[in-house]
């Protein structure tokens, strides 16, 4: 049995949302929310996924979970998600519901809004115990023990197990969400903006907790967020997205100290810095993000790019390896 460094290998992930219109509500167009995105997640690492609203970062996370649930509705998800399980490499995208079952508990999700992601009518013990009831075979008493243990792990008191979500603050609710995600002993956690709804002082608590748990349980995180300083702090590697495309991916240090793609540069230049002595005029990105329904041809960023040339409109620039990272721009240096 070969244990590789990689735990999840996502290849050519594309998510299309159909658009219906006209008198007969026929399918008239489609929005490619995620367009040919490939990345790998390594064991025990945090991969940060950054970008502005509409860039597809949340959809990437949801698509991975959707593949897991083997459901599609009218959203079309294509591509491969190769999961490196101890028993071998499995393409999760090709599995049926029943074939998926053994792997489903290995990937869990933490949501942004700790107010709406917990059922208000259930106690904490029921919320955290639910995945155990579905995925494990233990007795009621064993499950109760595990719930108490989980609550302690996330910094809550096991005595609070019989309380309801509204009795907790935002930070505590996010801890409950984390305990629920941990319940089935997952290998991968997809965290979608896990701290952006929290106050600054509480944010730091949750970030530290996630780092502690990662170390203790060897978890791999896909950390989706728009706050660049939080992502920098927690991530080993970072992927930058714009309008459904992954434009640059590399180590957190490389991306933050020497971003190559013009969009990564502009995004980082726009992030405010907590250092009043180092104020400076920085490059500002003009205009707004175009609508994903009317994505520019070729490179999606070319309409706001300072180094765009005429041939940028022709084809989507391929991602090439340069200076230790992947960049989807042939002209940046």
């Amino acid at each position, binding site marked *: 049995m070969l244990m590789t460094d990689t735990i999840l290998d996502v290849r050519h992930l594309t998510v299309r949302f159909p658009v219906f219109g006209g008198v007969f509500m026929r399918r008239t167009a489609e929005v490619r929310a995620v367009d040919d995105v490939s990345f790998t997640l390594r064991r025990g690492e*945090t991969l940060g996924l950054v970008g502005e609203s509409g860039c597809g970062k949340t959809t990437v996370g949801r698509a991975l979970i959707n593949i897991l649930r083997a459901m599609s509705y009218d959203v079309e998800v294509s591509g491969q998600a190769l999961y490196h399980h101890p028993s071998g490499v499995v393409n999760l995208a090709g599995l049926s519901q029943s074939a998926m079952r053994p792997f489903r508990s290995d990937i869990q999700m933490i949501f942004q809004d700790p107010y709406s992601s917990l059922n208000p009518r259930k106690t904490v013990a029921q919320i955290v115990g639910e995945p155990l009831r579905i995925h494990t075979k233990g007795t009621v008493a064993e499950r109760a023990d595990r719930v108490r243990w989980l609550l302690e792990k996330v910094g809550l008191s096991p005595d609070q197990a019989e309380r309801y979500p509204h009795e907790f603050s935002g930070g505590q609710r996010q801890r409950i969400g984390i305990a629920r995600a941990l319940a089935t002993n997952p290998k991968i956690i997809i965290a979608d903006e896990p701290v952006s709804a929290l106050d600054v002082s509480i944010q730091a608590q949750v970030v530290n907790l996630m780092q502690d748990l990662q170390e203790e349980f060897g978890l791999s995180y896909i950390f989706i967020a728009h706050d660049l300083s939080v992502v920098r702090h927690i991530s080993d590697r970072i992927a930058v997205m714009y309008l459904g495309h992954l434009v640059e991916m590399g180590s957190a240090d490389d991306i933050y100290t020497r971003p190559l793609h013009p969009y990564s540069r502009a995004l980082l230049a726009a992030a*405010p810095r907590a250092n009043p002595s180092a104020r400076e005029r920085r490059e500002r990105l003009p205009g707004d993000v175009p609508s994903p329904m009317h994505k520019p041809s070729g490179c999606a960023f070319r309409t706001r790019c300072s180094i765009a040339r005429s041939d940028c409109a022709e084809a989507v620039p391929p991602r090439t390896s340069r200076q230790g990272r992947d960049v989807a721009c042939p002209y940046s240096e």
Partner: protein
Amino acid sequence: MTTAQPLVEIRGLRTHFFTESGVARAVDNVSLDIRRGEVLGLVGESGSGKSVTALSILRLIPDPPGRIVGGEILYQGRDLLKLPLEEVRKIRGSGISMVFQEPMTSLNPVFTIGMQLTEVILAHEVCSREEARQRSVAMLAEVGIPDAESRMAQYPHHLSGGMRQRVVIAMALLLNPSLVIADEPTTALDVTIQAQILDLMLQLKAKRDGAAILLITHDLAVVAETCDRVAVMYGGKIQEVAPVEELFRNPMHPYTRGLIGSIPSAIGTKDRRLTVIPGSIPDIYDLPAGCKFETRCGDRFEPCAETEPSLIEMSPGHLVRCHLHTC
């Protein structure tokens, strides 16, 4: 000496909310000067009282349940809290105006941009409709809206979030107010748009002699980039006031120190742990009797639980409310 006179003086402001759960002392004895030409940051987390302070200045507190129970707010020699409401209404917009967080809710969805802008002028000044229209178009152009003339006929939903916030800023500046209160003006926007809007606000302020901005935010990085002075609020009280560089270089209140320590810095890497302020924000109906931060403070000692420290000037312009610096 009119220049030394602050633009707005808040003295002992107390705004309380009377609800079934009890009395929430959202703002409790806040004193703060807003000086001419400055950008003053008012920082705090949810429930600290920063927004209620701002709303109190313009008498926008919903009553009931809220009521301003004490203090005075001096503006141009008059106490805004004692003026009849019609007088306050004249000051809103022309003397002091406000920019809110969510541009979609501060614009009326069923009126065109043009109607909403011209109405602001027509409600305050005697002038022709055509003149009001021209001034509105000029203002839209000034806040960087391309093709301002044709935007006048559009509705708010035609615009992106960043463009809407530009319209709201245009509206706030139409009557040349001497103070703009901006309550989390960029929190709902993306980073690159936030940078555009903050730049714009500073540029527009620089063009208007003596105009001031009160910037309310939870984001210390935004404060570091834009403000001249900062006031930190917690539990309805001002805890520390200082010039911005002084505050980041030499934070004196344990809460301010904790806040600054909890920002993941641009240099910080995974190996560095964030400083954490333990516990959670106290219940507004049940604030500690002494120092409001006492329940979460790592430096607390005997007097903290019983007596509230007073706000003391430690060095010129640097005030702090903490027993560590008084005993």
